């Protein structure tokens, strides 16, 4: 049981770190796509390709460069989490009503004020839904990190398979599912507080 909790902690660390990394890269990329018509095509195409890559393939592809352990697993999971973030941020920013932007400019907001006071708060709800998708996908995919020796709940599942221990297998899988659902619900609640839909 203690081992299970350690794996839960490890699992959440993997997913959390990957998500943080994905936000760091995905937010600016999403803003870039939304604000620059010239770069949008390229950025979104890349994000689209990223979405179709199988998680396991990404882990394996990174193996030659980053080796095994936590670091490559985090990078691989982050790569998987970036596309939904980029896509939703782009969508959210471009969904800000033109009238609000026109009014903001006409009232004498500087471009920075317009972004901080109008674009960001109005884009937050849709961006948050992208973050939710990214979080659930990352938590689910972190199960695969076991294959490159990064630990997490995948260890328990694999052990369940190898020892033909169905109870362990299902318990671990259920915990992963519960974590993913929990993160989805928690982020949903946080989103309603931080960014109420108007």
């Amino acid at each position, binding site marked *: 049981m203690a081992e299970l909790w350690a794996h839960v902690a490890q699992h959440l660390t993997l997913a959390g770190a990957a998500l943080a990394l994905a936000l760091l890269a995905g937010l600016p990329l999403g803003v870039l796509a939304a604000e620059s018509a010239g770069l949008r095509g390229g950025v979104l195409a890349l994000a689209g390709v990223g979405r179709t890559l199988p998680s396991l393939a990404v882990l394996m592809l990174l193996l030659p460069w980053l080796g095994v352990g936590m670091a490559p697993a985090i990078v691989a999971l982050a790569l998987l989490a970036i596309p939904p973030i980029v896509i939703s941020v782009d969508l959210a920013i471009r969904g800000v009503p033109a*009238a*609000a932007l*026109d*009014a903001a*400019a006409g009232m*004498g907001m500087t471009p920075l004020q317009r972004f901080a006071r*109008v674009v960001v708060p*109005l884009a937050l709800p849709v961006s948050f839904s992208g973050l939710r998708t990214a979080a659930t996908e990352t938590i689910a995919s972190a199960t695969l990190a076991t294959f490159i020796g990064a630990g997490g709940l995948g260890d328990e599942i694999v052990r369940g398979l190898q020892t033909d221990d169905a109870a362990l297998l299902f318990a671990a899988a259920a915990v992963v599912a519960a974590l993913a659902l929990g993160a989805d619900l928690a982020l949903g609640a946080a989103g309603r507080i931080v960014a109420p839909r*108007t």
Partner: protein
Amino acid sequence: MSSITFDGVTVRYPGAESDAVENVSFECDDGELVVLLGPSGCGKSTLLRTVNRLVPLAAGRVRIDGNDVNALDAVELRRSVGYVIQAVGLFAHMTVAQNVAVVPSLRGWSRDETARRVDELLRMIGLDPAAYRDRRPSRLSGGEAQRVGVARAIAARPRALLMDEPFGAVDAIVRTALQRELVRIVAELHTTTLFVTHDMDEAFRLADRIVVMRSGRVEQVARPQELFERPATEYVRDLVHAGDDVYRRYFMRGRALLRGLAE
């Protein structure tokens, strides 16, 4: 308070083959309500947006109180000129009070002063501050939203007011009420106002003077009465006689009468 002068104003959008606004000159006097009237695409909104520099000039000059707007800081200029658009553009994530307070807060008014001003404005536009202050724009009717749009535009006591078809999206009954209130507010505040519309009746109801535009050019600048009596072009004549002109004659007579009483 303020006059707005257009002097040979010409605008051409990038990639366009002809000018959106071509060599327009006229003056909007202090405290005057001038309506820019014309069909869609005639350049009236473009001309309006040169005043707060949302549209750059290809040639000519726009002055407020004699100051070339291009010589002023664009951000400062926009904070000193109220702007109302048809789509209203209230900020959905802010309450009514926060929306109205945008320009005062950009200009660094104190919290107390801003709060007082917001209540004063809500009363002026006929919305009970206690009931509306903390509402979100999504819980306003079209007419209420546009009232708030007007309050937001005049919140920081602008020296001029620019209105781009502000009542185009509300139903006829509400529109009439809003027009009546606008006339009252503008008279009360003595704010120089440029008002864009394609609606003849609206133009005749509101205007001290009307600028009739067609394909980027001015056809005539005149008082409503004058447009009727001495249309400068065939186009203006057709325009003023289209639709219910008997009603318009009566309306103007009533207005002239009221003016006489007021003076």
